[in-house]
C-alpha cells in the first residue's frame, strides 16, 4: 500500500518536469484500433519527433492530445495535469498549440486576422468595451495588432498581412499556420507534417525556423514528419509508430539503424539505413 503510494508520488514529481506524459493511450474507431497502448514522454524544452508510415495513428495521437478526439483509454498529462476529457479550447489555453497536416487556416480572412484570432484569449478587453470602444479597447487592440505583426515578421510574412490567407503560396501558408499557433502563447507546440509538400530548400529553411522558434519562445516541440531528412536533422529523440503501436524509440542514430523501423518503412531489412 505505502510502496504503491510512494511510487505514484515519485512519478508525479517526475511528470512535473515533463512537458508531456502519455500512458496507455488507446483509440478505437468502430472496430479499428487506430492507436493502441501508446506511451510517450517529452521533457520540457525537448524537440521530439513522432514518425511512422501512413495510417500509423500519428495524427490520431495529436488529435487526442489537443482534445479533438476523446481517448478510448489512457492518460495524457501535460505538465502534470490530466488532459483527457477537457475541451479543445481549454487545452489550448493551458498551453498546447498545434498545426494541421492539411493546413486549416481561416482561408477567407486576412493573414493578420488569422494571427489576431489566435490572440483572442489574451485580447485584454471585454465585449462591452469592444462595442462601446471605451475602456481598455483602444490600447489593447493596438497592442494586440502590433504583437500579431511582430509575430508575422518572425516568419517573414510582415508584408503579407492584408492578403487573404487562401491567396498565399503553399510554403507561406505553412509558416502562417505556425505563426498562428504561436500566437496562442503555448509551452508545447505540436507540428503535424510541417514540411509536407516542400522541396529540399524549403524544408531546410523550415528546419532553421523551427530551431529558431524553439529558442526564441522557449518551447517544447513535438512534430510528426514524413521527410526523414527533417526528422533526423532536428529531432533529439524519435518515437516510431506502426499500426497504432510504438515499434521503436531512440535517438536519430539509433532509429536510423533500427531493424523494426526499416522493415516498417521499406517492407524488408536488407542491411540498409533509412
Amino acid at each position, binding site marked *: 500500500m505505502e510502496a504503491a503510494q510512494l511510487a505514484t508520488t515519485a512519478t508525479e514529481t517526475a511528470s512535473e518536469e515533463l512537458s508531456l506524459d502519455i500512458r496507455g493511450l488507446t483509440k478505437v*474507431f468502430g472496430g479499428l484500433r487506430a492507436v493502441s497502448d501508446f506511451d510517450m514522454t517529452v521533457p520540457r524544452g525537448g524537440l521530439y519527433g513522432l514518425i511512422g508510415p501512413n495510417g500509423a495513428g500519428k*495524427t490520431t495521437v495529436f488529435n487526442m492530445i489537443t482534445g479533438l*478526439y476523446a481517448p478510448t483509454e489512457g492518460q495524457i498529462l501535460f505538465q502534470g495535469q490530466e488532459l483527457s476529457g477537457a475541451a479543445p479550447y481549454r487545452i489550448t489555453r493551458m498551453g498546447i498549440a498545434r498545426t*494541421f497536416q492539411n493546413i486549416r487556416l481561416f482561408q477567407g480572412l486576412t493573414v493578420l486576422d488569422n494571427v489576431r484570432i489566435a490572440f483572442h484569449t489574451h485580447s485584454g478587453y471585454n465585449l462591452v468595451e469592444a462595442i462601446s470602444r471605451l475602456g481598455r479597447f483602444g490600447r489593447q487592440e493596438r497592442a494586440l495588432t502590433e504583437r500579431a505583426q511582430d509575430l508575422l515578421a518572425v516568419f517573414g510574412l510582415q508584408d503579407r498581412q492584408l492578403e487573404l490567407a487562401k491567396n498565399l503560396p503553399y510554403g507561406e501558408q505553412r509558416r502562417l499556420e505556425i505563426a498562428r499557433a504561436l500566437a496562442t502563447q503555448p509551452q508545447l507546440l505540436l507540428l503535424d507534417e510541417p514540411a509536407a509538400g516542400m522541396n529540399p530548400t524549403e524544408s531546410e529553411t523550415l528546419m532553421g525556423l523551427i530551431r529558431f522558434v524553439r529558442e526564441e519562445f522557449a518551447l517544447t516541440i513535438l512534430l510528426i514528419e514524413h521527410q526523414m531528412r527533417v526528422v533526423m536533422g532536428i529531432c533529439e529523440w524519435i518515437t516510431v509508430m506502426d499500426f497504432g503501436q510504438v515499434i521503436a524509440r531512440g535517438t536519430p542514430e539509433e532509429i536510423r539503424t533500427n531493424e523494426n523501423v526499416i522493415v516498417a518503412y521499406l517492407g524488408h531489412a536488407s542491411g540498409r539505413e533509412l
Partner: protein
Amino acid sequence: MNRILAKTLLRPVVWVIYAALAAGLLYGIGYLVQLNGPTYFAQAILDGLRLGFVYALIALGYTMVYGIVRLINFAHGDVFMVGAFASYYAVARYGWSFVPAILFAMVICLLLNIVIERVAYKPLREAPRIASLITAIGVSFFLESFTALRFAFSADYITYKRPFEVTVWKFWGLSITNATVIIVGVTLALVLGLQYVIRRTKIGKAMRATSLDKSAARLMGINVDGVITFTFALGAALAGAAGTLYAIAFPQIWTFMGIMPGLKAFTAAVLGGIGSVPGAFVGSLLMGTVDVLVVSFLPLGSRLRDLFAFLVLIVVFLVKPTGIFGEPQVEKV
C-alpha cells in the same frame, strides 16, 4: 464498503426510476386507450400509420436528393401538389381510372422535376450550397403562385374526385377502407421497388457511389450529372404518387397544399436520419402517428398538431442529434 453502500442504496433508486418511467408510459397509453375505448385508439393509430405511409413517399424524395447533392429541395412539396392536381385532372376531366391516373401523375412530376433540376439547380452546382437552396425556395414560390393563377389551377379549394368508390370493411369495430389498403399497398410496392433500384441495379450503385463521393464517382466513369437527374426524377415520381394517394385520403386540394406535408415529410426524413431510406420510412410513420394522435386525443388537437409535430423533432434531436438512424459524423482532422 463504499461499493456495497452504493450498490444497496443507489441501485434500487435507479430501478425505482426505471419502473416509474415504464409505469408512466404504460399508464399514459392505458389512459388513452380507455379514454374513448380501445377501438378509437386503434383506429387513430391506423389512420396515423396511413398518413405516415404518404409522408414516407414524399420523404424518400427529399432524403435521396439530399443524400446526393446535399440540397434541401424546398420545391419538393410543391411537386407533390402538382402530382395531386395531375391525377385530379386525369380522373375528373378525362375519367381515367386509378392506375393510369397515378402513373400520369408520376410522369408529370418526373418531367417537371427534371426541368426544375436543369434550370434551377444544375447551373449552380459549383456555387455555394446556399445558392441552390435559395433557388429551391424560389422554385417553390413560383410553383405555388403560378399554379394559383386563374388560368392554371386557381387558388380555390377543389374537391378531389376519387377514381373509385370507397368501400368500408369492419374488423372488430375498426373501419378499414379500400383507400387505406391501396395507400399502404402502393407505398409498400414503391418503397420495395426503390430499395431494389438502389441496392440491386447498376444505376442504384452509381447513386450510392455519387452520394459518398462525387469526384471519386466521376473518376470511376460514373455520369454524375445523369445520376443526379435520375435521382430527382425518381424522387419526383414518388412525390407524384404521394400527391395522388394524399388526395385520395384527404379529398380537398389546393395549390398551397404541398407546404405542410412537404415540410413534415422532410422533417420526418431528418428525424429518421437524413440520407437513410429506412430512416425516412420510420420517421414518416412516427410523424404521421403523432400527427393523428394529437388530433384525436388532445383538446384543440387539430389546431395544435403542427406544434406537436415539431416538438417531437426537437425532442428527438435533444436525445440523438443525428436522427434515429443517422450515423454520427466524425469530421476528419
